[in-house]
């Protein structure tokens, strides 16, 4: 049987684990910066096959962006709910977040199917390689986020969290918002700049 920890011990553990996740997110920023920059440099250097202007559309990525932004709102509402002591509202918001994440992946799958139909694959040309690398790595992070949130839901279902004990919800939330933040940049760099008529 575990001994209950004091408020001070809980605060210390909370700070240590939050510090760890912020260090992780800082390293992830550098990781994504490398891939996004590589995309910007190489996207127009294909010598064959369709390029970004011929195959990338704006509507589906716009819907994906809105879906992911709404999922960030539901995630932060889940944290707010447990801080206010409402477990039911917390897991409802967490499930909504996971569902929106799955919707994002469904739309991403739809976009990939369209691109493959148009002849763009990871091995078709340089654009295909850098496009699938950047968006695929992000999609992988979304999958990890959904699994993490569902693990938190499973823990919440067993009554693990309260108004004074909600660290796992907070940590999953930080990761999820970071994934959203990275998508905001990918949406701008990968999709919007391709549509520019005037620089």
């Amino acid at each position, binding site marked *: 049987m575990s001994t209950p920890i004091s408020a001070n011990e809980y605060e210390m553990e909370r700070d240590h684990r939050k*510090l760890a996740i*912020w260090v992780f997110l800082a390293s992830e920023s550098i990781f994504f*910066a490398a891939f*996004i920059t590589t995309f910007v440099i190489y996207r127009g250097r294909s010598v064959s096959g369709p390029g970004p202007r011929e195959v990338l559309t704006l509507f589906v990525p716009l819907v994906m962006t809105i879906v992911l932004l709404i999922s*960030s709102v539901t995630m932060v509402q889940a944290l707010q709910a447990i801080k206010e002591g409402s477990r039911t509202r917390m897991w409802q918001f967490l499930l909504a977040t996971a569902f929106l994440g799955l919707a994002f992946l469904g739309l991403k799958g739809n976009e990939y199917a369209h691109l493959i139909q148009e002849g763009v694959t990871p091995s078709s040309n340089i654009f295909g390689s850098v496009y699938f690398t950047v968006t695929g790595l992000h999609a992988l992070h979304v999958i990890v986020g959904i699994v993490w949130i569902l693990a938190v839901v499973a823990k919440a279902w067993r009554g693990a969290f309260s108004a004074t004990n909600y660290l796992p919800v907070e940590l999953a939330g930080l990761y999820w*918002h970071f994934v959203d933040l990275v998508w*905001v940049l990918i949406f*701008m760099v990968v999709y919007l700049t391709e549509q520019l008529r005037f620089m």
Partner: protein
Amino acid sequence: METTHKQHTNYLAVGAALIALTILEVLAVNLPIPALPFLVLFGGLKALLIALYFMHLKMDRRVFAGIFAIGIFGALALIVSLVLIMTTA
């Protein structure tokens, strides 16, 4: 210790602002104007809103913001280095 804050952030308003900025971005690329500065501005604002309000950097301990800022600085340094290396090669 986390800074206590009694008044709650209106997360729905932040979410609405993020969606509005996204729509402005899409409008900007469809207008006959030099849209790149607007894209950078709107994209930067969106990233800032997410970090400050959803990730609670505005209210949380300064050390977390400092660590994340180091990561962002590292990312910017990497971007500049890669661009310089790959465009001058």
